[in-house]
């Protein structure tokens, strides 16, 4: 009898404990799902859960925030899945105009008369003016804010003025013409911000607010939104790392197809993502593609659909031209000729999709409308014989070990890349025998400091490497390439880790940056790429794939492998579940 009492007490304690522990999780409460369609879709987010939702500062300028805010704030232009740039027909009534007269660039934006913020306040030129002032300078002495990640473009603006009925016409005048004007007030990391909610009393107070940003536990100030979705503070569950988006009741465009879009952090493990969608715990996943994962998801058809796209991120080689061997252009050219880049593609990203291609341009990727194959013929296919004859013509002699040497220096290179990246390791391992055929020795080196600062001697910026394999992210807005390819001045290498440049390339970039006509800018960019092939300080290899899988009961899901991300059109999603 005594034992049974104890047993009963134990059982009671256990059950009570279970109830307490099960019931006491951090939870979201009000979901406020009125004003939109029906059903909910859970997106399994692989990127780290953000600490801050303000996209202009480092803590908020991350992939997960870009996805959460993909359709939260008004954007003048959007990047479509084919990487074309189109004006936002919800926010603007017509395509913004471009005028360059006497070297002065002027753009005029006409805001939709119906466009309002979620609190009912109209979206006006004042919001454009505020967003410009917010981002025009990093210098506190100039009324700017050092916490800003980027001021490019906004710092070239002379004035932003409002006019017309209800202040709905915005006229932007630049101090110097700016090529990427379509990238301003555009995209989830750089949208139009609400002046009436965010404007502070002084530049100092504004900078203080910018530096603090929007800590995720506090949500977005006043739950403000200007897009189809809204995030209410109550719908952010920091403990469980879940953000629930609900329709913006004052949204002036097409209503959302869903009543809720739930973004749940599921970590970066692709297996977890696949098991999650298999078990129907998440409806959409966007993991890093891996071969076995793609196969597993394919096996889930027809319940699960998937697509592989090729995004703006591309792999390339950077030669450090301060290296005594790589300073010789002949060596760099021979290296390029020795590579069979098609074979590299076939052994790496080609495993994911037969659409994978060799990348022959450094400014544009294969599926951008402006892409031109600028590679000279000698680099299009493996050209071992020409590589050898080039080296021999420059005085290199083939040694008994099968490696060329000159003045006692063997053509032996270390290719540095990031640690724990199987795709890059495979890339280098495919290169090594190809180079060996041409009498060039190469070794693989996983360098944990490759992206570190100048104080780490083997970092890219410190120059303690010979050849590096890493990715750059292309963009429809191309002026950011300038820092990668312009000549190095003094100690400031910018992002030109090859440390090579020419006055001609610099001059073309000067022209490009000030060319607001997109077609002419693309022509200049391709001229630059032709010169970069001549210089041969970098070799583009291939675009990296992205992988999107979704429950087939969800309609209208489409990958956008640009900075717009997979949730770019989530307001149009519908579900039959």
């Amino acid at each position: 009898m005594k034992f049974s009492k104890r047993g009963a007490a134990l059982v009671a304690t256990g059950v009570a404990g279970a109830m307490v522990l099960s019931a006491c999780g951090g939870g979201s409460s009000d979901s406020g799902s009125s004003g939109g369609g029906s059903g909910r879709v859970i997106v399994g987010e692989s990127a780290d859960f953000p600490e801050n939702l303000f996209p202009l500062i480092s803590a908020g300028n991350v992939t997960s925030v870009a996805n959460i805010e993909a359709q939260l704030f008004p954007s003048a232009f959007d990047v479509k899945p084919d990487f074309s740039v189109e004006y936002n027909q919800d926010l603007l009534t017509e395509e913004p105009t471009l005028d360059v007269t006497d070297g002065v660039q002027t753009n005029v934006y006409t805001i939709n008369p119906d466009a309002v913020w979620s609190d009912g306040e109209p979206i006006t030129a004042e919001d454009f003016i505020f967003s410009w002032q917010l981002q025009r300078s990093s210098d506190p002495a100039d009324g700017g804010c050092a916490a800003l990640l980027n001021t490019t473009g906004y710092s070239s603006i002379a004035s932003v003025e409002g006019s017309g009925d209800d202040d709905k016409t915005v006229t932007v005048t630049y101090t110097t013409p700016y090529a990427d004007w379509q990238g301003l007030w555009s995209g989830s990391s750089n949208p139009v911000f609400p002046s009436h909610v965010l404007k502070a009393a002084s530049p100092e107070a504004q900078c203080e607010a910018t530096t603090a940003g929007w800590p995720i536990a506090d949500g977005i100030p006043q739950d403000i939104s200007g897009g189809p979705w809204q995030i209410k503070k109550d719908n952010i569950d920091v403990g469980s790392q879940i953000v629930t988006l609900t329709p913006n009741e004052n949204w002036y465009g097409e209503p959302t197809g869903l009543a809720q879009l739930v973004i749940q952090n599921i970590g970066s493990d692709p297996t977890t993502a696949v098991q999650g969608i298999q078990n129907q715990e998440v409806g959409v996943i966007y993991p890093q593609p891996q071969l076995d994962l793609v196969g597993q998801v394919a096996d889930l058809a027809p319940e699960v659909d998937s697509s592989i796209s090729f995004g703006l991120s591309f792999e390339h080689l950077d030669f450090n031209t301060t290296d005594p061997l790589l300073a010789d252009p002949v060596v760099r050219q021979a290296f390029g000729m020795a590579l069979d880049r098609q074979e590299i593609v076939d052994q790496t990203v080609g495993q994911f999709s037969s659409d994978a291609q060799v990348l022959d341009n450094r400014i544009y990727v294969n599926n951008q409308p402006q892409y031109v194959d600028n590679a000279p013929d000698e680099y299009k296919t493996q050209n071992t014989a020409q590589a050898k004859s080039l080296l021999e013509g420059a005085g290199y002699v083939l040694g008994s070990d099968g490696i060329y040497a000159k003045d006692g220096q063997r053509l032996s290179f270390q290719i540095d890349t990031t640690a724990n990246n199987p795709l890059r390791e495979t890339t280098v391992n495919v290169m090594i025998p190809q180079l060996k055929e041409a009498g060039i020795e190469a070794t693989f080196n996983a360098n944990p400091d490759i992206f570190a600062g100048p104080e780490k001697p083997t970092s890219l910026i410190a120059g303690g490497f010979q050849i590096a394999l890493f990715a750059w992210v292309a963009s429809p807005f191309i002026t950011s390439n300038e820092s990668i390819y312009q000549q190095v001045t003094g100690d400031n290498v910018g992002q030109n880790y090859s440390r090579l440049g020419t006055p001609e390339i610099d001059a073309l970039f000067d022209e490009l940056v000030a060319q607001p006509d997109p077609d002419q800018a693309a022509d200049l960019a391709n001229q630059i790429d032709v010169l970069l092939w001549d210089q041969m300080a970098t070799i583009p290899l291939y675009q990296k794939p992205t992988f999107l899988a979704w429950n087939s009961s969800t309609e209208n899901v489409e990958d956008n492998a640009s900075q717009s991300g997979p949730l770019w059109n989530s307001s149009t999603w519908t579900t039959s579940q």
Partner: protein
Amino acid sequence: MFFFTIRRIVASVLVLLASSFLVFVLCAASFDPLAKYYSRNPQPPPEFFDQLRTQLGLDDNFFVRYWHWLSSALTGDFGQTIGGTAVTDQLWGRLWVTGRMIFFAVVIAVVLAILVGVVGAVRQYKPSDYAFTFLAYLLIALPTFWFAALLKEFVAGGINDAFGRQVLYTLGEESPGISSYGTPSEIFWDRLGHLVLPTICLALLSFAAWSRFQRSAMLDVLGSDYMRLARAKGLTYRRTVMKHGLRNALIPLTTVVALGIGTLFGGAIITEQVFVWHGMGEYLLKNGIGQNDINVVLGWLLISAVFVVLFNLVADVLYAVLDPRIRLA
């Protein structure tokens, strides 16, 4: 006992100080929180780097940095993350998640370990002993991530298929947003469904090793003189084993379990990762080491170390409860 406890606490504080300094040295030497910004395109302006260096105190002398951290930590302020969030705020949330995950696992593991250990010892070299030994070594040999993946793939999949609906879950602590639309009973079952697999995973893997300790301790005790004396005095075998044998054999297990629980509070790193529970282990790996965030690593270290120390003290107290000779000493 009181002075003993005080002595242990003082010694623990010194250990915490030394370990925090050591970890600070390692992190300061290897972390570069600015690294991820150098490769951004376009690269942030110089003012951004200057501001971040100042904010993170990277321009300060190493000892000044450590003193700043230590003096704040003593007041319960573990500083801010690189992203500007208070580490203290994040730590409590993470600790609560981990605590909920490991509570039942530890209870189940301890009960199972004692049962299996005692049965194995009492029925040494019988089929049941061989069976439990085989099971224990199998579980010890299984890598956690693989065992967890098996549970997700086959147990969750199988049970859900058998029931024709979602009973067991593989991601997180609850279905997203269920607290906004579910009834209390739906919320309860949903959270229980999320709790089952990580609990089984942790419980079985912990139980396996602990049961071996219990069996070994029990075998030692069963062969001792006082057990024979108790039997000679006429006590039943069951009473001898339960009253005199088990009580003494629990002492070694107490040490192992206490250390195990203390360590688990630092995060059941792999289990959290596989079942997507955002607890202490994930906090160390992703937010600390992954982000090169020294304040996160040190905050984690201090809290984890406190739990190890705390459970060591609990073990000391339990020794006294289990063995009156320790109390008298």
